[in-house]
């Protein structure tokens, strides 16, 4: 997926997972927050490593006229030039010693996922009844409708 794109995606996946957890998964099992993190991060690690070590061959993308991934070290080229599919080719070629940087970038997925899920938690809430800071921008019409529904339910009880 490319290192840079993966970092952004990790953040975004963390954000979305925190919403899915609060809205659908927490009521089933509170540990889903951990399961989601393990699934997402390891998924990205495995997928990106397979590309980096050219087990997945990304040169098939060369059918796109603006993509030109070299046949040698194509996986590494793809990983270092994240947005090549979008036509943004930085032309970064793999050099000796870059493995260490690649390793630290892969490790940093953890941080970006955590950062996204933490901000997601603030925005969406954590427990089933919470709404996070989304409450601030929540449309009044929706709030009033929910309140009327709840009052009616309470009245019946």
């Amino acid at each position, binding site marked *: 997926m490319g290192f840079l794109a993966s970092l952004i995606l990790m953040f975004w996946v963390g954000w979305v997972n925190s919403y899915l957890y609060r809205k659908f998964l927490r009521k089933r099992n509170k540990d889903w927050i951990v399961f989601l993190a393990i699934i997402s991060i390891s998924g990205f690690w495995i997928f990106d490593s397979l590309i980096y070590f050219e087990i997945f061959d990304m040169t098939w993308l060369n059918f796109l006229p603006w993509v030109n991934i070299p046949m040698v070290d194509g996986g590494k080229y793809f990983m270092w030039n994240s947005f090549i599919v979008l036509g943004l080719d930085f032309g970064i070629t793999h050099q000796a010693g870059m493995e260490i940087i690649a390793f630290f970038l892969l490790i940093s997925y953890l941080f970006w996922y955590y950062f996204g899920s933490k901000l997601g*938690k*603030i925005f969406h*809430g954590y427990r089933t009844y919470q709404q996070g800071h989304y409450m601030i921008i929540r449309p009044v019409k929706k709030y009033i409708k929910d309140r009327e529904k709840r*009052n009616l339910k309470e009245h019946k009880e």
Partner: protein
Amino acid sequence: MSKLILIDGAKGHTGTFLIREILKTKNNWKIIASDLPSVRRKEVMSKETIFSSKLKYMEEVLQNERVEFIPADLTEPESLEPLFKDKKYDLIFHTASLYDYFASLDILRKINVEGIRNLLEIIYKSQDLETLRFIHWSTCGVYGEPKYKKDNIGYPIPADETTPYNPPNNYSISKMEQEKVLKEYCEKYKLKTIIIRSAPIIGPYQHYGTFHIFQIVNKSGVGPGIHIYPKKKRLAMPLIHVVDLVRAATFLAENDKAIGEVYNMIIDPCFQEDFFEYVADLLDVDYFNFPIWWPFYKFMSSTLFWLAKRKEKKARKLNSRPPVDLSMAGYMKHQYLFSNEKIKKLGFKFKFLDYKSTSKDTIDWYIKNGWLESEN
């Protein structure tokens, strides 16, 4: 000594606590309690049912044998007659008021200002003004945001009871006008009055006003950890526990030195940032520090206030109420810092003097009674 006392607004939050306090501590006091008839109360006090229909005040105190309930409406003078017929009161606690930030100034004036005028008129005609004491509930809101004197480090010094009126919202305007009517009667007929200016009330059973703060923090799941810099700009959190408020009322009612005086009822000064951190702790929600420079904070709070204003406008269009009444959002923009020294000097001892004991008692009660949403 046995006393006959009248408490109006007896079905309200403060009214019910006042009755409970008197039943507990004053064995010889006979209570005539009054409030709107149930149907009319439902109409006027929409704030009590609209946010949640299951939250109720402690109305069971009205069932006590020492309490006689007589319904009356302050806006209808003839309905007040049964309250005063063949009765000579020693004390009147005027807690009745429309405390609603969403209500229009016209309605607030009709109930709060015309209401007290009707009440005082019948008191003047039927009661012995030599012996009667009239304890009136007002609000620190009548001061608005005063021009504070500053201490050595530039932090504002709490404003005392001599601070001039500068009410920031319709409710406070109506309370200011109420005080003026009272002062008029006081001067004209030598009515013995005591005015209590209360900070926002918290405590068990409270479900409008500060309750919304706890509800929002609980529902959002994150305590707002805003730390304003420079520190001298930090905003205060004015609060008073309902138990102390009613204790102070009975204390002042029996104190000769209090007659003709005004007293602020507020806990010792505390900062909003400390209060919110503690509340987040008690509610077991996240809290993160967010240091912010004062001009940025002003911009941010003004934006949020603007958002709240839009929501209120939209809610009015939909013939309903917004999640938070606009004037409550005003607390994040202004410095409301008031002194409780005067009542302390008179010898009153607070049971809940700081924000920790005040909020802990309240939140523990909410949690125990399931008034705040939880997963249980």
